[in-house]
């Protein structure tokens, strides 16, 4: 729960900070597209005006038709007020790629580096494992809890537990097809 709140608050703060400070002139515009009319070719007009001024009369400059034809010309034109935030897009994509990259690195670590580390520890483990043959639960054996006081040991323990949970989930979904088939 703390994770979710922290992530969300950070993201929203970044958004607010970034969007308020630099709204570049490229990010807001009124775009009017006018199709060909009589002997005039079609044209696109862009102008940075507010939303209530986003209509043909304010944006199309210089007006290519004389005064009495302006209304007919303007009826053909389509004006849209467009707004976007390039920084939001940039921040979001970069955050997303970072998360995917981190997950890939962690996946590589779990698949390649972790078994190598475990193999070194496995010489020490068999002595402990013989004492609690019945223990198949995802919790560390009780005598090891006395050692589980340093942060690293606790992280180890949590990671082992999580790995077992994922293993259990994988068996349920992929092997036994009990769920989500």
């Amino acid at each position, binding site marked *: *729960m*703390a*994770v*979710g*709140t922290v992530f*969300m608050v950070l*993201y*929203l703060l970044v*958004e607010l900070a970034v969007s308020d400070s630099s709204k570049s002139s*490229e990010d807001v515009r009124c775009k009017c*597209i*006018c*199709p*060909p009319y009589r002997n005039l*070719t*079609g*044209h*696109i*007009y862009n102008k940075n005006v507010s939303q209530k001024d986003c209509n043909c009369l304010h944006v199309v400059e210089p007006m290519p038709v004389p005064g009495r034809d302006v209304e*007919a010309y303007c*009826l*053909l034109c*389509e004006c*849209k007020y*467009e*707004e*976007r935030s*390039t920084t*939001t*897009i*940039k921040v*979001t*994509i*970069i*955050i*997303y790629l970072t*998360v*995917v990259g981190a*997950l890939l690195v962690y*996946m590589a670590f779990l698949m390649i580096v972790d078994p190598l580390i475990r193999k070194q520890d496995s010489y020490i483990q068999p002595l402990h494992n013989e004492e609690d043959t019945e223990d198949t*639960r995802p*919790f560390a054996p009780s005598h090891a809890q006395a050692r589980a006081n340093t*942060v690293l040991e*606790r*992280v180890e323990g*949590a*990671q082992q*537990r*999580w790995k077992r*949970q*994922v293993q259990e*989930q*994988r068996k349920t*979904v*992929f092997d036994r*097809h*009990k*769920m*989500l*088939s």
Partner: protein
Amino acid sequence: SAGYDMATGSEMNGSGNLMDFLEESVPEVGMYEDFYTIDWLREKSRDTDRHRKITSRSKESLWERIKGLLDAWSGWVVMLLIGLLAGTLAGVIDLAVDWMTDLKEGVCLAGFWFSHEQCCWTSNETTFEDRDKCPQWKTWSELLVGQPEGASAYILNYLIYVLWALTFSFLGVSLVKMFAPYACGSGIPEIKTILSGFIIRGYLGKWTLLIKTVTLVLAVSSGLSLGKEGPLVHVACCCGNLFCCLFSKYSKNEGKRREVLSAAAAAGVSVAFGAPIGGVLFSLEEVSYYFPLKTLWRSFFAALVAAFTLRSINPFGNSRLVLFYVEYHTPWYMAELVPFILLGVFGGLWGTLFIRGNIAWCRKRKNTKLGRYPVLEVIAVTAITAIFAFPNQYTRQSTSELISELFNDCGALESSQLCDYINDPNMTRPVDDIPDRAAGPGVYAAIWQLALALIFKIVITIFTFGMKMPSGLFIPSMAVGAIAGRMVGIGVEQMAYHHHDWFIFRSWCRPGADCVTPGLYAMVGAAACLGGVTRMTVSLVVIMFELTGGLEYIVPLMAAAVTSKWVADAFGKVGIYEAHIHLNGYPFLDSKDEFRHRTLATDVMRPRRTEPPLSVLTQGSMTVEDVEALIKDTDYNGFPVVVTKESERLIGFVQRRDLIPAIRNARKVQDGVVSNSIVYFTEDPPPLLGNSPCPLKLWRILNLSPFTVTDHTPMETVVDIFRKLGLRQCLVTRSGRLLGILTKKDVLRHMAQMANQDPESIMFN
């Protein structure tokens, strides 16, 4: 099986915030285990007790009163947080999907994080003919080889498109398999089951949330025929579960937690469609089991906050929430109801075809060797989809863009192939009142391509939904319907233009008027197909009209939705989500099913005639050793307590999960409790005689009001009781004597048997 981890669990829980961060919550004393059904009555009474305690304490001091107020407001705080996080995640997903879908085709030189549309935003073309040109956007063949056109460029683009699609889907399925296997599929059938009272630990966890969000983007970007609406409901429910941990009111009470999850589901649909009211109705109609009025108002609040957050992130750059928000107000005519109803029939037929095909394929995946190669399956389906999708421009673009293009009315400024009508050069009508025109060659070509796209989508979606990747089916269904609708619309439009003197057109369609809007037909078709598959009624219509912003179109939408539901119900009684629930055998007691058989409670209860007699505890004649032996020999969830084994008069019911820790605790803490101690379930046990060991008083864990029915109660009533009260088990008596027990699983098995399904497929405990 009773795996009790309370001793180690409590120690682990006390060791700091790092642990809370790293692990999922450990089941505590008296909490439910994985794959169990909760007891709604018990949860409700626990909540009432908690509330009464807080109210009585609030009179003591100011601080207590403030705590009482905070408790009352905690629900609203949770809704606010859920709305914020769900909106944020939906915005991130939308932006990432937008970019990655276009990444398959090319890159923007102005900044690699821009999608095609965003890249073209900055183009400075000013002439009308060049309005679609985008010099900053380079396709891969242009970048790698320097050739924008030509056969070799086409082949290179094709190859790179397929490669990107395969990369994305392989990445997605590997992440799912490695980190969170529960993140695959749509999520709505499982959430329906969870909301009806089932516990699936880890399904709404933090890793599932993270992986589902990340792999959803990958799945949609890889061009597969799936949508993101169903998974967004799952993501929102994960957010809901996450914030429940903040308050013990929700984290310790499974019944209250489900109220929050119902509201979170509403927020999920709200951000998926930009439809807050539709989201609430969807949660009410499709997802939730119990939906008290209090939840209605809170769901609406969560949905609004989520929609507002998404709007402020503004993923589509025009303050709209959904990619295919259309806003036209051209009227429709009564004679057009005929094609609308035909579209409804098409929707119903497609719904039936899809449900049957998909369930058959999923059953094959579940039971045969196909299910052993999930990664290969995903890669194969992606390869087939990408290879067949690239040549047809309507399948190459993302499905949301396709739907947007189909829903749009053709103004004078549209340059797409679908709007290639023969224009009158002297026409001077304004943009949204263009009369019906003859179709140009571009339109005919578009119709051919759309027909091919329709067949392709119908076939490939059957094989895509249910793969081991997050997959939704709202968008593909809407795409199928929109394609069919648009084709019908163009057909009607051309018929009206070329034959406006026929009887059927004469009264309402004059030459030179704008009678037929093919975009509206596309919308109606989309609603019909979605209704045929999911069997939604009110929520579908509300979502569609919130998508379009046009209240004028309610009648056509309703006509199509009702017709498609009738046609689909004629062929099969259940929608896709219930069908998946049956396939997986989840213990879900559907409140829409009707039980019409004349069986009695005595036909269904356990023990049957051939089975050993019921395992009961007596009020005061069993020793601790006897009780422990009984617990070890059986794996029942609870035991009835009777006066004596001869009289069999019922006193109450005791749960296994309360009995085991009580005995264990008593052995550790109370002196004198040994294996020979007698267990008393009365308030005043008889006085001790001489040197008999100390008795064990377990009065407190006894439930004195178990639900009972007589043996001649019709099963119809029993099913109703189970549904309405959310019971887990029910005792059967005759003349006051205990006869047997009926559990929810027995009821489900009986219903399956009566409906000729396989009763052994009902799983779990």
